[in-house]
């Protein structure tokens, strides 16, 4: 194992929040390392597009700006590296093409983003069914269509973006199956209008989809995906119970986003349940510092607020770190950033509201529906554990194996907690969340052990005989 490298600041995640944090801290004269699993900075929202020539004023433009700025900065870039351990102090261990690496810093900014929430329904495990965010990655970063005949479903503006993206590439959208009513969208308009550029962008997507005569089924939801080795048909229902089947070869569906909070949980930061902003998030100061001194959480991993506020939160956190390390920061700059963050909340909270509050959808999950994809655990198995009198969320995991697979409970955690809350008539706060455990992502044992001599393994003293 190589000796850990020391920095003033370690930033985990090179999306809009982490990227800006790293740039801000480096500009303030701090030594910074920025670590990300992807081979290029930008995170999921500003993923490096396949073709670098992209029209101006798109997200890709922001991504390009970020990548160029990082390349020109003093930030040490550690891309294509999988962080598997974060411990007190802070020490961060990662694996990459060049083997294992350890670095340490007194300050750690976590900007690990979010992952998709899909509320289970029969057939959601079928090949050809994928997340809405997955589809944006395929479209933007790989320039590929999810299928030849695609149903876009779920809730929120991402549906419009994906449907418009498919059409722009010459693909076919069978229908947009929208859980929201049209009145829901209209009701959100005043709040969305506080960010005219973003509203215009979203309106443009929706307009293009509607203009293409693609059916937009408001107040409808997907109840089943069918097929053999790939989805071939989905069943949708309206609120009044009218069912119909739609033939397709891909279903992209998303019910919102869940903040990626593995690192603050691992470091035992105090968390709270904020349904509007995606669920369990760390308690934060105005500078985005957690209850663990020196540990900051920014971007969607600190609560779903979108890219607009992600950058601002990253900058504020980095400035706070700089201040803690004795650097001067302009009060006017702080005030401006805080104002910008507050101003953007009106828009982001309106979007977040569209994506949250899905207790009824979870309650509707059928007994035979698989909830935990990794371990094929159905709702009835979780209910059966509760019927035995088991209430502890970790114990339910032990008994059913739900959440024990390689995704480490990321895909099912939110749903299982909601099911346990429903089943035991407790709040999500009372039910809590699964304990955070390393590794942060599954890592190959072969990579973890590297090459070694048996005699060099620091085997502790044997126990008494």
């Amino acid at each position, binding site marked *: *194992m190589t000796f850990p490298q020391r920095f003033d600041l370690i930033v985990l995640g090179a999306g809009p929040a982490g990227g800006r944090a790293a740039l801000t801290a480096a500009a303030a004269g701090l030594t910074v390392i920025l670590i990300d699993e992807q081979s290029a900075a930008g995170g999921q929202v500003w993923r490096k597009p396949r073709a670098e020539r992209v029209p101006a004023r798109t997200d890709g433009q922001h991504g390009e700006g970020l990548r160029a700025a990082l390349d020109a900065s003093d930030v040490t870039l550690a891309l294509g590296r999988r962080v*598997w*351990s974060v*411990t*007190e102090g802070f*020490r961060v*261990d990662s694996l990459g093409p060049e083997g*294992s690496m*350890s670095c340490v810093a007194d300050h750690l900014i976590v900007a690990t983003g979010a992952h998709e929430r899909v509320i289970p329904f029969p057939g959601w495990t079928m090949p050809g069914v994928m997340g809405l965010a997955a589809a944006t990655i395929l479209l933007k970063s790989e320039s590929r269509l999810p299928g030849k005949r695609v149903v876009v479903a779920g809730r929120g503006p991402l549906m419009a973006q994906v449907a418009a993206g498919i059409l722009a590439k010459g693909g076919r959208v069978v229908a947009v199956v929208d859980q929201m009513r049209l009145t829901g969208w209209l009701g959100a308009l005043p709040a969305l209008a506080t960010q005219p550029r973003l509203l215009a962008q979203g309106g443009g997507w929706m307009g293009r989809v509607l203009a293409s005569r693609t059916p937009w089924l408001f107040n409808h939801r997907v109840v089943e995906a069918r097929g053999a080795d790939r989805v071939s048909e989905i069943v949708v229902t309206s609120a009044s119970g009218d069912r119909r089947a739609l033939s397709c070869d891909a279903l992209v569906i998303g019910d919102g986003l869940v903040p990626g909070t593995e690192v603050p949980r691992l470091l*035992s930061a105090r968390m709270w349940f904020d349904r509007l902003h995606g669920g369990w998030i760390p308690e934060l100061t105005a500078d985005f510092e957690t209850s663990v001194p020196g540990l900051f959480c920014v971007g969607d991993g600190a609560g779903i607020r979108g890219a607009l506020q992600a950058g601002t939160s990253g900058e504020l956190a980095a400035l706070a770190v700089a201040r803690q390390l004795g650097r001067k920061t302009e009060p006017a700059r702080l005030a401006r950033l805080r104002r910008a963050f507050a101003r953007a909340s009106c828009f982001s909270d309106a979007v977040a509201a569209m994506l949250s509050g899905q207790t009824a959808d979870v309650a509707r999950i059928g007994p035979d529906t698989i909830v935990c994809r990794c371990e094929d655990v159905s709702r009835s198995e979780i209910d059966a*554990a509760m019927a*035995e*009198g*088991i*209430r*502890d969320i*970790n*114990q339910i995991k*032990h*008994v059913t194996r739900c959440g*024990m*697979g*390689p995704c*480490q409970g990321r895909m099912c955690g939110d749903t299982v907690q909601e099911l346990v809350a429903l089943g035991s008539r407790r709040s999500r706060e009372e039910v809590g969340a699964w*304990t955070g*455990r*390393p*590794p942060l992502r*599954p*890592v*190959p*044992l*072969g990579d*973890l*052990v590297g090459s*070694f001599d*048996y*005699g060099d*393994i*620091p*085997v*502790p*003293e*044997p*126990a*008494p*005989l």
Partner: protein
Amino acid sequence: MSARYDLCVVGGGIHGCTVALFAARGGMTVVLVERGSLCREASGVNAGTLTMQMTRVALIPYALEAHAMWASAATWLGHDVGVVVCDGLSLAFTQAEAELLSYRAGKRREAGAPIDLVDAKAARLVEPGLGPGVMLAGHCKIDGFANAYLTGLAYRRALIEAGVTILEETAATAVQRVQGCFEVDTTGAPVKAARLVIAGGVWIESMLGWLGVTVPIKVLVNQLAVTERQRPVMRTVIGIASGLLSLKQYPHGTTVIGGGWQARGDRERGGYELLPDRLVGNVRLACHAIPALKEARLARAWAGLEAETRDALPAVGPVPGVPDAYVCGSVHSGYTSGPYLARLLAERILGREPAMPLFPIDRLLDPFERAA
């Protein structure tokens, strides 16, 4: 008025649950008070190894009985807890380890554990998944493992069946002796019982303090790790001479890697932190023993808190100076031997002579306190 139980057990791990179960089956009214949920600490998160080759010599006779109990868990507990009985190998890769293994296996054999020393070729016949470099191996046919995660569920069903009152999410906070009866204060309603068993794992030190008894208990923070599912790569329980590796693949394909490498933690705060270098060290041992593990990915790592007395022998017996109070815990390799030791204590509480001696804690008291 609250009912008065014949027995109150504080702590719902293997020890507490087993004492409660056999006391209830023996005709007592029993209440079990557990701060969290049943077998959620060391009893539920340990490596599930059922082995003689990591058991202390003094405990071998108990471990043999306990192994038989585990193997027949479906009968007396009503649930098989995923027990697999298989061969076990303790490996030596260096001359020093071979010497240690020969000595330790010999002592364990004298105590009754059927351990044979075999060469690399014979070891490979037992376990074809072994890597190169084995010099010597201890082979024991009485070995195996349980799925520790299922322990809580198994005991829950059995305790309910036996009529034990289970108070989960209820922490005991103090004990008074009032008119020949124990009054246990809890975070819920107080509990009254004629007899008391302290079975709170690493927390028995402070619990014994309620009774005015001081027994220092050391806390081991044992690190564990598990791979994701993979193809079958091994069929035995593997350890090394020093005892600092335990390795077994479950029928569903995951492999649990343990051996007692220490994480950082403390019992007061309750949390712990796994240290990356030790995790890597433990996993290196595992991959050295079974190279095909390198194909798998590490899915999760955690730790369990194990209690250890000054002489690393159990604290199972009456509490000195406090009639009708007992303690049950600190059993090294407690998952293997726990059920049998706890059953012995239940026998004693039921007024019968246990089949083997208990481990009273008088030996662990401060000499001045003992004199007083």
